[in-house]
């Protein structure tokens, strides 16, 4: 016996392009509207929001990026910690961080409230930049320089975990970022 009302296992006969009940139409409309809200939030955040993964993106030879990092280290090095250089660039500087199995090089010393352009790249395989404890994550891909303008809003001793599998020592790959408070008085004269 054939009926108009049928399950999904039965063949609809004739033309099934028929108007839907109002309830269904309303839901489709609301769902579509919600999808547009989901969409609109992204351009809106680019315009008004403070956290966007845009950055400066360009291709780079891994060896060239590494050489640039070493030059950066030489320029602004202020100390050592466990064999890794601590580097303190001035506010506004381009900052270079090389990921390699299983190390983030160098240790960065930044200033709260200052803006830097943080360049991320890898010498070997994919790595994951994951800033602890604030949970900021970026993909680090060999051959690509990801230059992100960052402005720390709190001081502290931060960690960089690797959160992209990069080999058997992946879970030992931890780097360090130190953020200091801005100098109390940045006036003329006096020792800093």
């Amino acid at each position, binding site marked *: 016996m054939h009926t*108009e009302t049928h399950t999904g296992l039965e063949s609809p006969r004739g033309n099934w392009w028929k108007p839907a009940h109002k309830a269904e139409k309303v839901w489709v409309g609301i*769902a579509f509207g919600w999808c547009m809200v989901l969409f609109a939030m992204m351009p809106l955040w680019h315009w008004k929001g*403070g956290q966007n993964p845009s950055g400066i993106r360009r291709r780079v030879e891994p060896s060239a990026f590494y050489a640039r990092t070493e030059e950066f280290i030489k320029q602004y090095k202020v100390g050592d910690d466990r064999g890794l250089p601590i580097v303190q660039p001035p506010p506004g500087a381009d900052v270079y961080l090389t990921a390699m199995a299983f190390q983030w090089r160098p240790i960065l010393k930044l200033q709260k409230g200052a803006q830097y352009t943080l360049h991320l790249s890898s010498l070997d395989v994919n790595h994951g930049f994951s800033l602890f404890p604030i949970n900021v994550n970026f993909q680090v891909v060999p051959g690509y320089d990801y230059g992100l303008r960052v402005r720390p809003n709190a001081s502290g001793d931060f960690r960089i975990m690797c959160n992209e599998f990069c080999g058997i020592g992946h879970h030992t790959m931890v780097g360090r970022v130190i953020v200091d408070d801005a100098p109390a008085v940045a006036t003329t004269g006096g020792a800093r």
Partner: protein
Amino acid sequence: MTTPARRSTAADVGAYTPASQSTFRTCAVTGRRIHDRAEPVIKANAVTAIVFLLVGTIAAVLLVLTRWQAVHLLSAVWYYRLLGVHAMSMLIFFIIFFEMAVLHFASTVLLSARNSMPKLSWAAYALMLGGALLVEAMMWGGRADVLFTSYVPLRATPWYYLGVILFAVGALAVQWVFFRNLVVAKREKTYEGSVPLVVYGAATASIIAVITLVHGAAIYIPTFLWSLGLMKVDPEVYRMIWWGLGHSSQQINVAAMVAVWYMLGALTIGAVVLNEKISRSAFVLYILFISMASAHHLLVDPGLGPAWKVVNTSYFMYMAVLASMIHGFTVPAGMELGMRLRGYTNGMFEWLRKAPWGDPGFSSLVLSVVVFGFVGGITGVTIGTEQINIIVHNTLRVPGHFHATVVSGTAMAFMGATYYLIPLIFQKRVAFWKLAKLQPYLFAGGMFIFTVSMTFAGNFGVPRRHWDITFSQAPYSVPFNPIVDLLLAFVALGGILAATGAFIFVAIAVKSVFFGTPVGEFTLGVETVGLPRGITHPPVHAPDVDQRNAELHAASRGIMGPAPGTIVLVFVFLAVFALYFFSNWKILSFLWRIG
């Protein structure tokens, strides 16, 4: 269903005239004709799927017991190795073998049609099995410690990539069988009108499978050549095209799962199709807007600009989200209307209260819809937003999301389907019947605890794919909030509960199929051990179903129409969705300025 059910006896076998001497039996329960060159292919693919499910589940138990830091069972080498084994066994081999069973089932049994290319079906099966075994051998042997994604320039043995390629070629061949079967069925007029919605959904899955497998060829063949030293592969291009395979294949799962939802709704409670136009258009949206679904895996990647990211995740993906939101309405509404048409018309939710909660096919269906929608769907869309991905990428929130979609969603639905395939295709009673009734609750409940705990742990920045978050061998400590330990213990607890559910499922399937009691005689309307309620109490609609349907659609019922309960439920869903979505923006706004 309108086809009257008959008392079951042994299979009737009838001669079939055109084309071959192949024969059909008539299904005693549904009245459909089942081809003897289709049935064994369906069985082989389904059984193989379940064997890989077993392998993947064993790996899963070892993995959760490692991430539970108090136990920390495996060595680092074996943790990463089994992580690859788990993902390939589950996400590729289990799911795709099962989908091959579904495609053969939908293109033959559901159309009362024949399998037009049995030889190709078997050749494809052999290729897929050979490829899968090759991949497993390379991974277990430690020659492919590159995890599931095998991001170049991590390097595995060329045999590994070759195994994946063989598997993919086999799967592609099945799509050819599927489409040819549809054409042959149409030509031989095995059905009248259009194909049923479930077949339409399966065809959607199949079309997406072709798109996906083309991406697979486009990335694995160059990678295979790269592993032999014959060409270069750019790591970013690899990520983009690989995810064209990796994520689009999840859209095969979604389409197949939604098709199974419609099927289980029909079999268990006589769910009807509210409107063919709406449901079928939603399936088309999946096809049209999935092509760049890889984009939301690359949101915090350096290779692509913001415009590309926004367009490809939102414009394309949200139209697929729209499709899921439509099915998220039409599936429960079809179930509600099906129940109302059978007389459960009181109040908002009598249709749910009086539903057959002891039928594992039905409970699997409901749990699949609910966990997929509320956990998987909401988290997925939220974390796939360009900026929000900054606080999500590669944390445990990601596996928290996709276990809710692909495990509590797709795998749960496929398990529910199996409870009907066992009596209908294998013609056996479901073994361990009491456990079978419990199994969906155990599996979905465990996965719910698992996915929610993972998501919370991810909020603290706990990385995915990580052997030791105590960082005992690292130069610097990473002092996670102590609550993270508790959450990871809950991940293990939920994981073990769900794995227990999966082991029970495998035991039921193996016992039923290989050592089970034949369905034999049973009386309609009497609860029978080993037979789901949809078989002993077929949800047949009354002959005046069209008239009842018209009454439920009457204008006097207002905007709430034929499915008022579902309308309440979808608005609860939307509220939860909005709350979760905007909470994430709020959290994001507290961070460093980044741009």
